[in-house]
Each structure stands twice: as C-alpha cells, then as structure tokens.
C-alpha cells in the first residue's frame, strides 16, 4: 500500500517507516507538521495515512484537524490516528462523516506489529479500527433513548468487538463461538438498530456509529 506518515518525533517516525517497509508497504511521504501532512494527504492521495494527533507548529490537535480537513476534500480517505491518549470526543469526530475508513489507536499499539498492520489494512479497506480503550469507555456510557437497550448482553459484546473493527472470524475466536453464530448475531444487531442493507454504506460502520451515538437518526428512504 502507499502510506503517508505524519509524526513529529523522529524516533517514532523512523520506526514507523522501517516497520511499514518491513511489511512491504511503500511510504510515499513522512512529514512532521500539520500543514505538511495536509499537503501530503491531498497531494499523494495515499491508500492509508498514519497521523499523530499532536503536531507542530501549534502542538494542539493539528494532526486530527489535517485528517478531518483531508476527508472533507476526499470523502472516505482512510486515516489511522495515533495518540498518547484516546478520547471519545475525537473518535466521534472522526466517525461523524459516516464514510468509515477510520482508525484511532494508542501509540503503543504499534509495538504489537502484527495487530497494528491488521488495523491499518482494515482502515485502508474502509473499515474501522478503534482502540479497545475507547471502546471500553463507550461501554460505560448510558444514553437517553438508547437504541442499544434493545440488544442482549451477548449482542452488545459482539457490537463492541465490531466497533474495534475486527472481522467475524476474529470475533468468533474471541468469544469462543462459531462464525455462523456471529453472523446470526450481526444480522439481529443490524435489524435491531434499524440498519437496512444498502449498497453505498458499510453496515458494520453504521452499527458502530450507532454504538457511538454519533448517528442520532437517519431516514432509510
């Protein structure tokens, strides 16, 4: 895949480049600031981009803003955001445009290289890869008029794993169930969350969005 990297710490940037090359990907740009990141995203149109949230010159959330701006220009441009801390707020903002192709992970997840590459591939294919830490926070959050009230405990577990972005096969392995059981669960979840199959949206992403409460209502006309 063609990858853009935006990370201001040289050690991490260098490490990421090596890691990606070791896995046979091509790093088309490795930049260290917000404006440069946006330029690279729009100029290179990579298959996937890896951005640090906090970048120079302001050291605020420039990486996140660059990603959001690039996705406004190129809807669905796959981005994987890395950060030293995970916030629900950022996750919601990333998922709000409903195009999928979004990842949001703690920096140290890079240490588990195989997992990290999995996430990257999922994001590049338009899926989601949310850090379990974000998902855990989301689990502890009650909402009014919660569409999730309709779900059973087991369905919720499945949905939580879906939110992390893993495939049915992997979910089945984690919950010690058969893959057939999982696909049954996903079907009931989609039905309960009122997500009808249509061509142009990824239903898994939509389910996750509902899960996040980022989608309040949408018409299925």
């Amino acid at each position: 895949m063609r990858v853009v990297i935006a990370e201001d710490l040289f050690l991490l940037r260098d490490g990421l480049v090596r890691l990606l090359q070791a896995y046979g990907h091509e790093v088309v740009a490795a930049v260290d600031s917000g404006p440069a990141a946006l330029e690279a995203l729009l100029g290179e149109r990579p298959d996937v981009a890896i951005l640090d949230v906090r970048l120079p010159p302001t050291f605020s959330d420039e990486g996140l803003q660059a990603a959001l701006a690039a996705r406004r220009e190129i809807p669905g441009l796959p981005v994987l955001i890395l950060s030293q801390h995970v916030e629900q707020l950022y996750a919601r903002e990333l998922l709000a445009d409903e195009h999928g192709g979004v990842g949001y992970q703690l920096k140290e997840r890079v240490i588990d290289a195989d997992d990290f590459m999995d996430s990257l591939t999922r994001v590049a294919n338009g899926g989601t890869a949310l850090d379990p830490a974000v998902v855990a926070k989301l689990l502890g959050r009650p909402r009014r008029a919660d569409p999730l009230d309709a779900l059973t405990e087991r369905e919720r577990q499945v949905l939580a794993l879906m939110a992390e972005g893993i495939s049915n096969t992997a979910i089945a392995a984690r919950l010690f169930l058969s893959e057939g059981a999982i696909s049954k669960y996903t079907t009931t979840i989609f039905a309960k969350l009122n997500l009808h199959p249509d061509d142009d949206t990824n239903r898994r992403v939509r389910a996750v969005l509902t899960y996040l409460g980022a989608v309040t209502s949408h018409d299925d006309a």
Partner: protein
Amino acid sequence: MLTRIPGRIGAGLYRSLTLAALTCVLPLVAVAVGWGGALFAGTWSPGPGAPLIGRIAVGVGQTVAVLLWLAGALWMTHALTSRPLAQAARRRASRWLGLDLAVDYRGPSPVTRMATGFWWDGVEYHKSEREARRRARMNARFHDPQVKWDGLWAVVAGVTVFPVTALPLAGLVAGLGSVLYGRTVIGILILLAALAVAPLAWLIFQPVAERFLGPNAGTRLGRRVRELETIQADLTETQAAELERIERGLHDGAQARLVAMGMSMQAAERMVDADPEAAKVILADARASSKAALEELRSLVRGINPPVLVERGLVDAVRALALDVPVEVEVHAAVPARPERPLESAIYFAVAELLANVAKHAHASHVTVDLEYGEETLVARVTDDGVGGISPASPGSGLAGIRRRVAAFGGRLEIRSPEGGPTRATVSVPCVL
C-alpha cells in the same frame, strides 16, 4: 396578617427608639453647644452706634468663635463616645439585619525600651515608660483609623438616622400633648400617623449602616492581605505536594519499570543463543512492562495537565470529560476565547472534581454543565437532579480543594444543594477574554 400589626408596630417603635438613642449624642451636643454658644457670643455687643465695619467684625468673630466651640465639643464627644456607640449599632445591625460588620481596632500599641534608654510607643520616643504608655493609650483613643471612621458614622447617622427614627417618638409626644390640651381629634390623628410610621422609620438604618458602619479601607486592605497570604501559603503547599506526587509517580512507577525492562533485556541478550525460548518469554515480559509503564505515565500526565485540555482548550476538554462520566451529561458552552492556561486548568479540574462528586454521591440521572462568560467573569455551573444535601464542608468531597484552587485566581465556589436536590455548584472566576 392583622394580628401581626401590633407586633410590628411595637418592634418598629422599639428599634426606632434604640437607634435614635444610639445616634442622638452628636446632634444633641451640636444643638446645645451651638445654641448656648450663640447666646453667649451674642452678649459681645458693639453697641448700636458703632461703625458698620466694627459691627461686621464682631459678627464674624462671633460666628468663628461659635464654630470653634462647636468643633471642639464635637471632637471631644466623638473621642469619648463614637467607638462604643458604633459598636452598639453594629450589634443591632447584625441582630436585626444580619449584616456582618466586624471591624478591627488597633488598641494601644506595645511600648518598647530602646538601647538609647528612650521608650518607643510606635509613633515617637519618650523619656519615661509611664509617659510612653499614656501616649499609646491616647493614640489608640484619638488616632485609631477605625475610630475616625466611627466618628464619620456618628456624624452621618446624626443627620440621617437620628431625625428619621426620632419622628415616631416625636409624633407620640406631640399627639399625647395635643390630646391632653383638649385637641382630641388632631391628637389622635397625629398618634395614628406616628404608629403608622413606626415600623418603617428604622429601615433607614440599613443603607447608612452598609455604607458607614463597616470596616474602614485600611482594615479591608489588611484583611485582603491576610487572605492573600493564606492563599499564597496554600498554593506553595499544594505545589510542593503536587511535585512530590509527580516525583513519586515517576520514581516508583515508570522509572522502576524501565530499570526492570533494561535488566530483562540484558538477560534475554545473554540467553538468546543458549535458550531462545526462555529469551522470548523474558522479552514478552519486558514488553508487558513497557505497556504498564506507559499506562502509569499516561495517568500521571492526565493528573498534571490533561492532554485534551492542551490540544483543544477548556470547552472541548469539558465535553470530553462529560463523555467519560457514567451519567448523562449535557454541556452548554458560550465562551468566546480560550482563557489563560493556568486559569483554564483550574476551572477544568474544578469541573472534573464536581462531576466526579456527582457520579459518586448524587445518584443523579441527568447533569448539565454550563460554561459562560459575561461581565468579565468566567462561570462554570454544574447542575444535577440528584439527592442534594451536600454542604460545602462535606469532608472528602474535594470542595475545599476546588475552593482553594479557584481562590488563587480571585474566584469563588458557590453551592446550593437543598435536601432532595437539585444541586447547583457554580465556579466563577474573574478574567478578561
């Protein structure tokens, strides 16, 4: 209502009488001295045949003499009576109006003997101790700034509170006199008017007391200085405690783990040829250690300066906070710009503490956080529909900590929490955005 009227008239009469008594001294002395002085000065007659210039000179002299007597008499009266009368008025103000008008008098300053053999009374030197003590007492009586301020109260109250509160009394006397002299109808009307005015007359006390009976400017400044000294001491202490906490967190946590990791790596390095399996186990351990070290560092950083606050500022940081609380939280924000960083951090931690309290104690189902800016004040309000009944002095609620934190910026924390809720905690800090 009707049954309470006699009671109110009685209370009004009693209060008016008391206030008239407490404020009558200076006006009575002034009238007596002025009138008597004028009569006496009037005896210096230049005679009707004197030239006009002489008559004018005598008139001016008479006036000046009366004014001087008046000033002297009032000054002495003030020195002898202002302080006890003002103190008595303050006690009434706190009992009737709930005004807190505590003031500080300096009292006689201590007398110390200098190496030169002279005695120092705080203002000047004296040859004998007795003389120095006498002068210190005199200074305390005549030159205490608070006593001067009390004198101002005596003058102002003498021309405002005294005439108004004396009205019902004068009316009663005049009415009774009229009745005795056979003018019954007019007498009764005057009596009724006096009784009607009685509950209202003493109300003039409040505005005058608020303005003139409180501590003087110097005392207020002194108190503010003490307050600031307390805040400063608090700050220094909390800062030291914070640094200690951070140091301990790094020393016992991340640092120790890094050392352990280095040791594991070294062990793995040695074993990698002889026993690659065991080396792999050790390396996996080291990786787990690095994760744990990161966790610890992350929570430490959160406690020092939450990353969201750095990246996004107060409003979004509070929004992120609200998302992490296990209660339904609504955030309304109308803040035009980011406040100063230290202030921002204080308000953020205050809101975090308040939300944590709600989650722990309130059993609330819905919480609202309002961030507003207006009249050069930044206000953060946390309202919940929980059980209420929090007192600001509740131990372990962290409210004292919040109060200290915002007091450092001249801010305040107010809590209204009736039993049964709703609870509303308001943090307001003056600032310019």
